[in-house]
């Protein structure tokens, strides 16, 4: 249960960091997303039942600080978490091979879904140009930053649920 008490304020702060500090690293139309890195990391180290609430709450928090319809990031994060759960076994938090490519693909999945939801809400979204102008810079920065976040989230998960930190996995 402690994981939920910690999760809520952590995700709240992460959403605010995304809207403030992360915008300092904006390149072209894209910026790194700490929220996406946290959700992907959590999905890689924790059980699906633990990762899904983080995906929903994190998505809603992110949407509250965005013009996107509330819940759209949650849908994208939930699908990403489910896909990660289906593809990968639970990773040890020292793993450095899987998280970077995973977050790269997740950035594109999230970006394309975000474009779709913006279009659904009536905003004009240039899909093709957006692929390289908005999604690519953010994806590259997420790729570069994921290992730090992954270690941090892995550490928190290990602290809260020590049995998942086994080196045998």
């Amino acid at each position: 249960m402690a994981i939920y008490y910690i999760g809520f304020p952590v995700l709240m702060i992460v959403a605010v960091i995304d809207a403030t500090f992360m915008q300092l690293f904006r390149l072209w139309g894209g910026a790194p997303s700490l929220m996406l890195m946290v959700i992907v990391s959590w999905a890689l180290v924790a059980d699906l039942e633990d990762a899904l609430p983080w995906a929903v709450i994190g998505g809603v928090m992110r949407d509250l600080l965005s013009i996107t319809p509330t819940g759209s990031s949650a849908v994208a994060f939930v699908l990403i978490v489910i896909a990660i759960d289906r593809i990968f076994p639970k990773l040890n938090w020292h793993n450095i091979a899987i998280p970077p490519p995973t977050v790269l693909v997740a950035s594109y999945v999230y970006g394309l879904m975000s474009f779709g939801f913006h279009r659904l809400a009536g905003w004009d979204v240039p899909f093709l140009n957006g692929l390289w102008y908005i999604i690519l810079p953010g994806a590259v920065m997420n790729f570069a930053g994921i290992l730090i976040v992954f270690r941090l989230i892995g550490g928190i998960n290990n602290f809260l649920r020590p049995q998942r930190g086994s080196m045998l996995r």
Partner: protein
Amino acid sequence: MIGNRSPRTVAIGSALFISITLVILSLLGTLSPAESLGRAPLTFLENILGGFSGSIDSAADDIAEIRSLRTRNRELEEALADYQAELAELREIRSDYDRLVALLNYTTQTPEDFRYVTADVIGRDTAGVVRTLHLDKGTRDGVAAGDPVVTELGLVGRVVKVSATGCEVLLITDANSAVNARIQNPNRDVGTVRGSLSGDLVLTFVDPDAQIGVGNLILTSGEGQNFPADLIVGQVTGVSLSDDELFQQASIRSLVDFSRLEFVLIITNWEPVDLSVFDDTTGAN
């Protein structure tokens, strides 16, 4: 039936159901009060962290920009000398204008009549698809959706979302933004200023015979009642024909540096003329 399903299936189903329901309710507008309530603590935190990240950004910029500021300062001093001569001439014209306005009993809302609320920029849209700013003023300060946002250098955008303590502003540089504008030239030609994916401003739908010159000021025209008239939008930097060669278009440089905005002014007492009655009569949108 639910009792037979595995906890994983229930978790997936619940997560998807909650998320999709939220999207539908949000698109229908049913969630607006709850969104406004949920945004309040986030805006409070954003206010604290936004100020802090703004300070870091400013400090980094200050160091990087000292050299370019020296050059810019020299250029501005030269320009100031020119403008002072022009100002004297304009004061004479203003004096004539005031007397003529008094004679004609012509009334219009001027910038002096606007009520401004100063707001700090505390964040930007997290999705990055739409160019928006988060400000620390909301309905509690008299801000409403649709309010124009400006700085002393010109038009910034329009409030699109508002909560009790904060609001979100769609920048004029966004591709979804369209501002009816007038060129400050003898013919007072009109056009539409649009944003773009890269954030550049383009004046489109200008009559092909219009005389547009590099350096011409572009002001809001007030047509369509999206913005008050005579707010500065930017300056023409280049002119070309549109792809279909039916109109002229001009690239515009705003005097506002949208990536470095720290505070802005929200015009809270501007009320657009209600044009909906004409829509009802004609059936047009």
